[in-house]
């Protein structure tokens, strides 16, 4: 270890087509150091790691600019296997373990200790006998080094999640010549005590001279574990700090930052304090990847409430739970009446409409015309746009055409006409069709989930302006869920930040970046100040 840095990634840039996802990023890791890599979703952390591991997705899209140095020597890593041979290991966020195999077998998978036998002499190395004794003693050693007392012959199947995490770590440590370990959000699935144990294990590993890159969004863990911290934002390097030179508040602020100007400017106003439109009490939603674990909040009539937070933290689960698109539990009252969860038609009948974040999956009938999409919900829920002939019903083509033309004009949906199939529209126009469908319901309460995901900037502006107009002119109560904090800040009256399925805090749009950053990593800004963790 003659070089100062075990890993140097200098001036890395990566473009996917027109889209620059990494722009001149530099990451330097010393031997035996725990180096935290911080950033919001989409800041470029994953891409940087893909470059480090030589993932095929990088090479398939034209490679990258910049250089990677290992122990001060320039190298080129061509594949994940190559990375492994060069002493770089990864502890995955989703476990890559074979459930039916024992701990030992998992740890030694594809690196088994073998003895030669009669058959293998004839047929080659693949038929050598496993030396189970040597393998299990090696596994034992690795397990001990991560502080796990579990028997090395236990099967992985049925183990607690935390144990699996440690088995993964043990597997990486067992690899000979490992110099650098990457931990990708290792604490996301761990309990608090397991997380604490993990941090101490990481410190142990670091002490033995192995460098660690620690990817997380939990700022307190960063402060507890890391020696140095690199912060990325929007594919750019913000800064690299040593732990002692920074504070949790500063990190939060650096992570969020100001991203350009507000896209829509609204007149500042008092937060509406009218009647409670939606009262949510202890809501639990079982939406895969976006679980909500006991959230309570009120929405007042006439306000725009923003819900923010990092991806996978449960913000999307809230509207989907209230609309009963996923199994949900809890007490929800809408305009003073109790809403029974379990069937989407209850919420729709109560006057709530939703623009789903999953446009193609839930939001649209891609194979059907724009007009059929727009009137569908209103037709099914309110029985509108139908001609009744005795017990029979028929679509009322004229009314449908009229409302579709009006929506196309109002929302500026760019199309060949109301009979064009929704699947052939661009993302932004599809989003407008989704909004038109919600508006055709004439709702009193509107959920908008990720309304600007995957659409161009002009369409974004128009969508946000439409929401503001609906709110101001028709007094529609709107709850907007978005990953883009800037967007939430530009139109919301209040912003609710969700982390790990729970409500962290409700902040005014003018709150500081640091406050938002802290809230997103699960720390209530007020409490943090009271706790006096700041330097």
């Amino acid at each position, binding site marked *: 270890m003659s070089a100062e840095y075990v890993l140097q990634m200098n001036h890395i840039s990566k473009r996917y087509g027109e889209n620059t996802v990494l722009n001149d990023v530099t990451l330097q890791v010393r031997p035996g150091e725990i180096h935290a890599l911080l950033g919001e979703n989409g800041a470029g952390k994953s891409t940087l790691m893909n470059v480090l591991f030589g993932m095929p997705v990088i090479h398939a899209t034209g490679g990258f600019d910049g250089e990677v140095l290992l122990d001060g020597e320039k190298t080129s890593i061509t594949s994940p296997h190559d990375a492994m041979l060069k002493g770089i290991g990864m502890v995955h966020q989703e476990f890559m373990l074979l459930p039916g195999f024992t701990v030992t077998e998992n740890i030694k998978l594809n690196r088994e200790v073998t003895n030669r036998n009669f058959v293998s002499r004839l047929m080659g190395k693949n038929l050598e006998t496993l030396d189970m004794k040597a393998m299990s003693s090696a596994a034992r050693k690795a397990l001990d080094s991560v502080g796990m007392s579990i028997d090395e012959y236990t099967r992985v199947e049925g183990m607690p999640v935390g144990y699996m995490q440690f088995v993964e770590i043990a597997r990486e440590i067992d690899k000979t010549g490992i110099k650098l370990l990457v931990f990708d959000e290792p604490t996301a699935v761990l309990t608090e005590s397991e997380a604490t144990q993990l941090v101490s294990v990481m410190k142990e590993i670091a002490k033995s001279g192995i460098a660690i890159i620690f990817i997380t969004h939990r700022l307190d863990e960063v402060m507890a574990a890391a020696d140095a911290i690199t912060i990325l934002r929007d594919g750019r390097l913000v800064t690299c700090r040593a732990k002692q030179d920074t504070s949790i508040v500063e990190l939060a602020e650096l992570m969020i930052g100001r991203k350009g100007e507000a896209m829509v400017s609204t007149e500042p106003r008092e937060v509406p304090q009218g009647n409670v439109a939606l009262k949510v009490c202890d809501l639990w939603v079982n939406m895969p990847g976006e679980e909500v674990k006991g959230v309570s909040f009120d929405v007042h009539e006439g306000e725009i409430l923003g819900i923010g937070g990092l991806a996978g933290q449960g913000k999307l689960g809230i509207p989907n739970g209230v*609309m009963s*698109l996923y199994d949900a539990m809890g007490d929800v009252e809408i305009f003073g009446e109790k809403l029974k969860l379990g069937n989407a038609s209850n*919420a729709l009948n109560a006057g709530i409409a939703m623009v789903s974040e999953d446009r193609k999956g839930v939001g649209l009938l891609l194979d059907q015309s724009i007009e059929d999409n727009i009137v*569908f919900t209103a*037709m*099914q*829920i309110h*029985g509108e746009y139908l001609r009744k002939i005795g017990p*029979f019903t028929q679509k009322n083509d004229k009314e449908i055409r009229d409302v579709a033309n009006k929506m196309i004009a109002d929302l500026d949906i760019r199309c060949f006409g109301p009979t064009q199939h929704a699947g052939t529209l661009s993302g932004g126009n599809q989003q407008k069709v989704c909004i038109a469908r919600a508006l055709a319901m004439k709702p009193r309460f509107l959920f908008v989930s990720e309304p600007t995901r995957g659409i161009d900037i002009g369409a974004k502006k128009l969508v946000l302006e439409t929401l503001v107009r609906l709110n101001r002119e028709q007094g529609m109560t709107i709850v907007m869920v978005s990953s883009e904090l800037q967007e939430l800040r530009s139109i919301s009256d209040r912003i609710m930040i969700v982390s790990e399925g729970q409500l962290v805090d409700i902040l005014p749009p003018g709150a500081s970046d640091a406050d938002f950053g802290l809230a997103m990593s699960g720390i209530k800004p007020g409490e943090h100040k009271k706790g006096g963790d700041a330097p």
Partner: protein
Amino acid sequence: MTKNKLQRAVAIVLVAAALVLAVLGAVNLPKRTTQTGQEIIDALRIRTLLNATGDGVVESYVKIAQDEARAKAREDAKATGANVMATIRDYVAKAEEETRAKYASSQTDYDALDTTALKAAISTYAAQLADYQAVAQQAEQAYIDAHIAEAEAAAAAARQAKIDAGQEVGEEKPVTVDMSGFVATEEMKAAQLKADEGFAAVGEALCGIYPVLDAAAVNTLKGTITDVVYQRGDEFTVQYDRYMAAGSEKALENGTAAFLIRYADDLLYGALALLVAAATVLYYELLCKKLGIPRIIIGLFFILLCFMTLWFDLGLSTLLSNSLVRMGMNSIMVLAMVPGIQCGISLNLGLPIGLVAGLIGGLVTIQLGVPGWPGFLLAIVVGCVIAAVAGWLYAQLLNRLKGDEMSVTTYVGFSIVSLMCIAWLVLPFTSLKLRWPMGTGLRNTIGLDNTNFKHILDDFLAFKVGSFTVPTGLLLFMLLMCFLVWLFTRSKTGVAMSAVGNNPRFAEATGINVDKMRVIGTVLSTVLGAIGILVYSQSYGFMQLYTAPRQMGFIAASAILIGGASTSRCKISHVLIGTFLFQGVLTLGMPVANELVPGSTISETLRILISNGIILYALTKSGGEARA
């Protein structure tokens, strides 16, 4: 750009070729009825006649020589005392050989013969024969008209007697009038006499050419001569083909010109075919976009078959009329695919559930002996009730096995057919029309007749245009059912159902009960299957039990796919287009295939190939963009 140019070049070449063919055809076609055509026919006729009679003449010489040889052998044998029989055998064989050798060459040198007299005689005789045949045909038709009612009554009585006796009643054959009581009319006799005079003249002329022929020998050749000169329904192409088949092509001074005249109509068809090909090449992209590749292939194949029936003179209009009937009889079963696809169970290959329900309805009607329309309606009602119940159970199964509909429906279809094979043996129907005369169980094929609902839709308001029969009732019923299904797809429930098929999660997000909609679609599909098999049976004239319904689900599925549907999207127009193309290809394919490969089962092979191939094609598509 270059591709575009290439297309244009190919199209221009094709159009040019078409023009050449069209001009050739248009110039030559009228020649058939003019002097040129007549001369060709005359030349061929003389040659054929001489050929045919020439053989007879040689035989006469041979016979004479043999007789002489036999007499000479007897004498020689007597003189030498040799074995009489052996000597006769030797002499006769030798004489025959020599005679044949002598005349074989001279008889082929027809140009040397003076045929002026014969030509005139034959022309007169041909006209006389034509007169006679016209008169005879008229008289025969009059006789048939007078006796047809009698014959039909007798056939019906015989049939009834068979049924009463519990015997197997086969397919109803067209009633024919027994012509044994027919006596030639006076007019016929007069015409006959005139023709006989003509024949005498021909005989005389022949005798002039072949001195060896005598009146008796000519009389033995009368049948041959008459057949050569004129046959009922003769016209240019028929005569040309007949004389060519007899090997008379050497009589023609200009074979190519005659050939062009003979095939002038085919040249015109060819020109039309080339124009179609040119249009296809030119508008290939547009067609691909509008129709999709499978429909283009099947459509072009259908057009090709149409031209081939024209080339082979197979009677296109009759075949198209048959296609129309088969389209009508199959269309309701194809229509049954629509609710299935729209509600998201994909292709309802479990259609046999509906089919057996419909068959049971039909059996009940025959058992109760309800005739005509009431019987047909009763069959539909009973069939629909059974189909609705069975379809509901089937839908419960499909709702528990979401995502694997394709295999579930296929296996359900196969299973129900096998299960019903047992049921047909034990169901308590007692009518002798339904049961085997001996043993237990229902017949394999149950013939329908006028006492129940055979052709009840086909014959309703049916009319004929030339040889093209329009099954008005069948087509009206088909359109009515399509209209009803179309109305349903536009109702609130129908809209919700198609949303379920299109995107179940979208439907769920709107509070629609996905399972309920799938049940509605499945039941509707099964009920339509029941109606479909009854419509099919009434047109076909039989109800087929046991394993017959097994393949019908696949046929219906491939028909709608050919029409342009995918496994997740379909329209009523797909039903109509698909059924017509699929059935049209099969109907036209059979006679054309028999013409190309006589006695083959290519048509059946074709059916299996098309129906299964198109389903596979659709499945490859459904895995791609349709589901993404």
